[in-house]
C-alpha cells in the first residue's frame, strides 16, 4: 500500500520547508517525520518524500543511505543502542554490549523475530562523562554497569 503522510505530519513538513530557502534542505526533517510515522524508510516512503518535496527520488535515497539513524528496514519496538567508544569502553561499555547482545540473542543491527527488540553498537553518544551508557529509542540511560543495563532490558521485555 502506498505510504501517505498524516495531515498533521504534512503540516509539520510545511513548517520545516519554511525554515530553508530550498525544498531539498527540508529533506532531513521530512525523513525524520516519515521515520516517526512509519518506523523505517521504505521504498514507498521515499517515493512520497520525493513527491511532497518536489525533488528526485534518488536525492532521497542518497540522503537516507548516508545517515546511520535512518533505517531502511523495520527495527525493533525498542531499539537498544550501546556505546562502545573509548570513554564507555574504559568503564565497561564493551562488556555491556556483549551482555546485552547475549541476553537479547541479537547481533549488531539485528532485530528479534517478534519485532520487539533491535540492537545497535553505536559510536560516542556524547555521554562520556556519564559512561557507560545505552540508549533505548530516544532515551539515554547513563552511569550504568552490566546489571543495571540488563535490568533496563528486562523491564522492557
Amino acid at each position, binding site marked *: 500500500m502506498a505510504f501517505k503522510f498524516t495531515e498533521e505530519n504534512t503540516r509539520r513538513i510545511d513548517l520545516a520547508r519554511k525554515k530553508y530557502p530550498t525544498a531539498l*534542505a527540508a529533506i532531513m*526533517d521530512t525523513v525524520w517525520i516519515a521515520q516517526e510515522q512509519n518506523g523505517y524508510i521504505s521504498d514507498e516512503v521515499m517515493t512520497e518524500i520525493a513527491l511532497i518535496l518536489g525533488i528526485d527520488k534518488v536525492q532521497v535515497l542518497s540522503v537516507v543511505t548516508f*545517515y546511520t539513524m535512518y533505517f531502511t528496514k523495520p527495527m525493533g519496538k525498542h531499539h537498544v543502542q550501546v556505546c562502545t567508544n*573509548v570513554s564507555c569502553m574504559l568503564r565497561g561499555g564493551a562488556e555491556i554490549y556483549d551482555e546485552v547482545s547475549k541476553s537479547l540473542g541479537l547481533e549488531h543491527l539485528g532485530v528479534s523475530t517478534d519485532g520487539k527488540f533491535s540492537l545497535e553498537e553505536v559510536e560516542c553518544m*556524547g*555521554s562520556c*562523562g556519564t559512561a557507560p551508557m545505552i540508549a533505548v529509542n530516544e532515551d539515554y540511560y547513563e552511569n550504568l554497569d552490566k546489571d543495571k543495563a540488563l535490568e533496563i532490558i528486562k523491564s522492557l521485555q
Partner: protein
Amino acid sequence: MEKIVLPDIPNFDKIEVYKKHGGFGAAKKAFKMTSDDVIDTVKKSGLRGRGGAAFSAGLKWSFMPKTTDKPKYLCINGDESEPGSFKDRQIFEYNPFQLIEGILITCYAIGAKSAYIYIRGEYHKWVKLMQEALETAYKDGFVGEKMKKTFGTDFSCEIYIHKGAGAYICGEESSLMNSLEGHRGYPRIKPPFPASKGLWGCPTTINNVETITNVPKIIEKGWEWFSKIGAEKHPGTILYGISGHVNKPGVYERPSGTLLLDLINNEAGGVIGNKKIKCVIPGGSSMPPLRGDQLEGIKMDADSLRAAGSAIGTAGIMVMDEDTNLLKVLLRISRFYHHESCGQCTPCREGTGWLEKTLRRLDSGNGTSADLDLLISVANNIEGNTICALGEAAAWPVKFMVDRFRDEFEKYVKTDVVIPVNNKVHSMRNTANPLANIKH
C-alpha cells in the same frame, strides 16, 4: 572564579531567571554599537573557537564580506560527535538563552538574517530542550520580527534548529553545510571558504556552540575583562569534559591554561583506585595521546598543548589508567574513524581501513614489529592528503600512540614468525624480524 558559559545559577535555563541576571542586556548593548565595533571587541577579547581548531572568532567574522547582494548565514555547530566530547549538550540544557543571545549578537556583527543550529540526531532530548527555549525566546520577542520592538532596533533575525541523523563527519564545517542543504554530508574542497561561499553559495560563518555562548559576556563586560582570564593567547574559560578512569567524570568550566593534572586530580577526583595514569588524550579522540609519565606542567590551552605535542581540540580529556590495554583503545579509535570516513578521498577511505585491519591483526596476536611501522607509514600517508581534517583525526592517534608507547605495542607483537608458505626465502624477504626468530 566566575563561570562564563555554565554559571552556577539555579534554573538559568528559564527565561525569567536568565533575564533577572541581565539576560539579553548584552544584545541590547551590541545593537547600539556598529557591527564593526562588535567584531572588533570580540577580536580584541582573544576569543578562540571551542570546536576544535581554536581559530580566532572575531577574525573569522571579519572575513564576511561587508557588501554583498546575497543573504548571509550563521551556522552553529552542535554536532558534538567527537568521542570524549560532551560539553555542548550542557549548554543546550543549562544555558540555552545565552547561546541564543550569542547568536543574535553574532548575526548582528556579521550581518546575517538567519542562523541554523545544527544539533546531532542522537541528541533528541537536547533538540527538544533547545526548540522549547527558542520558542520561548520567539514568544517573548527576543528573536524574529518582534525583536525590533523589544530591543528598539531595526535589526532582526531568525534562528532555526536543524537535526542531524548520525554522522560524525557532519561536524566538519563544509560537510555540515552540505548536510544542511539536503545533500549527503560530504566535506567540500577548500577554498572557497565558507565566508565567501558557504550555505547555498552565500557568505557563511560557522562557530561552535560554546564559542558563541561566550559572546554575550564579552559584550557585557568588555574585551579587557575577558582577555585577562586564563592563558594570555587563548583567554577565557573552557568547558573541560573529563572522562575515563577518574572518580568524578564530568564537565568542568575552568580558566584556559589550567594544569591538566590539576583538572584530573582535583576537579575530577583523581584516578580510580589511585592508580597511575598510562595515557591521556587531552582534546577528544582525534588528538595526539600523551604519556601519563609526561603530564607534569602541561597546561590546557592551544599553545601549551601544541608545545607538549598534542592539541586542545574540544578539551575532552580521556584518562586511561596503568592497566589499560592501549592496543584495544587504539583499535577502537581506528574502527571509529574507518566507520565515519565519508569515502571521498582514497587515502582516508582506504587508509582508515588499513589502520583498522592492521590493528586487528595485532590484537589477534598475529601482528609483527613490521606492522607497527606499517601503521605509522599508513598514517603518514593519510595525513595532509585528504579533503578534510578527518584524515588527520584518523592518523594522529595512531601515529602518536604507536610512537609514544612503542614499548607497550612491542609487547603485543609476535616475535617468532611461522612461515606459512613453502618459498621460505621469499617470505623471509617480507619480514622485518631478525632471521634468528624464524622457526624452520
